[in-house]
């Protein structure tokens, strides 16, 4: 939809008195202003869906980066199946076709009482509703010896961009009989199946280019997302469980990695076991993004507790939190879930603007994971609140891929790629 068509549609609805968000405006004599902090999957979706519901309100998206690089799909970049440029894009679509004000700056303080933001530019910004979608912050203080500087040598590649390319270059330069260590964090973290998709795609590349090399996954968990399907694929394609396995999975739940020695390229467990790797992909534990921590929106867990009915913070009234930063468990921290959370948040705010109660939320999550260059598995769940308005295990329905013949897995890979392009457009208005 272009701007002209959009305005035409808006005009039609407002002439008929059905722009419900206008109720608010008549009362206050000025346009309602919704501000969104963070232009990832959650923030971008919230902006676009608010505009779909409320053609006449003012919507601002605060994001310091003018080019966003998406994390989903970046494992394909690591093994040369995709270019990073295919995951990088700006906010022109949201700005031009959906009349979203894009503010390329940072928020330095939130005054939730007077509903004002202080910006890095020195300006203040008034809001009527505020949405935080700040993503994750990587914790550098949990693995002894690790630091942000050291991530230039031992990449996490958990925020796509230069880290992704660094890991790609290290894998490409791996010795023929080299070892890759993948060290995922404990739950909860961004993209639960991500480390295992990464192992699968690196193994696929090794099988062709360096069949004597090996990947060790050193996991602080006892089990992982889509485990049975991943292990079935690894047995079939990567000799998993045999002497020649390209992937080994070690659960170190009782003896997790606690330190790294950069000099000897070694990670050490709590009881002193050592693992040496030519490439060490250390994915550190995470919390909600820095702005959420600085503004007091996080609890002891490091994530933002929310009322799932409205997505509002339990700690600072009137602030909505969506995406990875929010404590939406058992909904996983994924781009797809952030998109779904953003839609419900936008709907809730739109209803609030016309003095209506929020509707019962229904969240969807679908994650496709590549297991080879042309096969994928998926997990898909639908989440609702239970009778006491809580998010609980009881309210989950769905499941993982049940058809695992090669044709079905190839079909899932095709659908996964297509669905991802649709998701990007649904969030960022890319029109691709």
């Amino acid at each position, binding site marked *: 939809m*272009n701007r002209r*068509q959009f305005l*035409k549609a808006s005009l039609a609805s407002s002439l008929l008195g059905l722009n419900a968000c206008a109720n608010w405006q008549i009362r206050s004599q000025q346009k309602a202003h919704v501000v969104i902090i963070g232009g990832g999957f959650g923030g971008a979706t919230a902006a676009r869906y608010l505009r*779909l519901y409320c053609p006449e309100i003012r919507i601002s998206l605060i994001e310091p980066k003018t080019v966003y690089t998406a994390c989903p799909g970046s494992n394909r970049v690591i093994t040369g199946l995709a270019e990073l440029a295919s995951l990088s894009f700006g906010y022109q679509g949201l700005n031009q076709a959906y009349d979203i004000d894009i503010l390329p700056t940072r928020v330095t303080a939130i005054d939730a009482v007077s509903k004002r933001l202080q910006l890095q530019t020195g300006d203040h910004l008034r809001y009527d509703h505020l949405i935080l979608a700040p993503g994750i912050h990587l914790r550098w203080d949990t693995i002894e010896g690790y630091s942000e500087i050291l991530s230039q040598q031992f990449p996490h590649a958990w925020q796509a961009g230069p880290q992704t390319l660094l890991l790609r270059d290290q894998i490409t330069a791996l010795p023929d009989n080299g070892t890759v260590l993948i060290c995922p964090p404990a739950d909860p973290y961004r993209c639960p199946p991500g480390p295992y998709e990464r192992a699968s795609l690196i193994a696929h590349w090794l099988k062709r280019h360096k069949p004597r090399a090996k990947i060790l996954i050193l996991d602080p968990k006892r089990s992982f997302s889509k485990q049975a399907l991943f292990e079935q694929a690894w047995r079939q394609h990567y000799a998993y469980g045999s002497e020649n396995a390209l992937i080994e999975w070690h659960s170190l739940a009782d003896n997790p990695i606690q330190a790294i020695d950069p000099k000897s390229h070694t990670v050490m467990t709590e009881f002193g076991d050592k693992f040496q790797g030519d490439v060490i992909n250390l994915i550190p534990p995470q919390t909600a993004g820095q702005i959420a921590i600085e503004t007091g929106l996080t609890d002891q867990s490091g994530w933002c507790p929310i009322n799932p009915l409205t997505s509002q913070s339990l700690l600072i009234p009137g602030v909505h939190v969506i995406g990875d930063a929010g404590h939406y468990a058992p909904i996983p921290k994924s781009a797809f879930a952030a998109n779904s959370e953003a839609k*419900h948040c936008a709907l809730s705010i739109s209803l609030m603007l016309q003095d209506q109660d929020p509707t019962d939320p229904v969240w969807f999550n*679908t994650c496709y994971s590549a297991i080879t260059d042309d096969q994928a598995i998926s997990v898909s769940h639908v989440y609702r609140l239970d009778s006491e308005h809580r998010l609980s295990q009881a309210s989950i329905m*769905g499941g993982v891929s049940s058809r695992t013949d090669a044709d079905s897995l190839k079909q*899932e890979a095709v*659908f996964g790629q297509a669905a991802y392009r649709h998701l990007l457009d649904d969030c960022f208005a890319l029109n691709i």
Partner: protein
Amino acid sequence: MARHTSHTIVLVLCLSSLAEASWASPIQGLIDNCFACHRHPQQSQGLPVIEGRNPQELSQLLLDYKYGRQPATLMPRILKALSDSEIQAIALSLSQPAIPR
């Protein structure tokens, strides 16, 4: 897009006696989730177009997926989480989009 805009206007006219916006229905949240994977009205990229279809046919297809009468990779898992009446309401609503996308 022009087709969808005119749909919207027609629907808005139909609902103009109602006090609230046409999107403020309990089913809207469910419908919005469909567009994460079925975004493009024209370019389907291997994934079916869902807006503007015959509601009876779409409803029957979705129920066939749900009850295993029609094979599919992912839709049966999602649809088992929805009631038959939700599926029928989604199919009806998608045939007459409430908001332009």
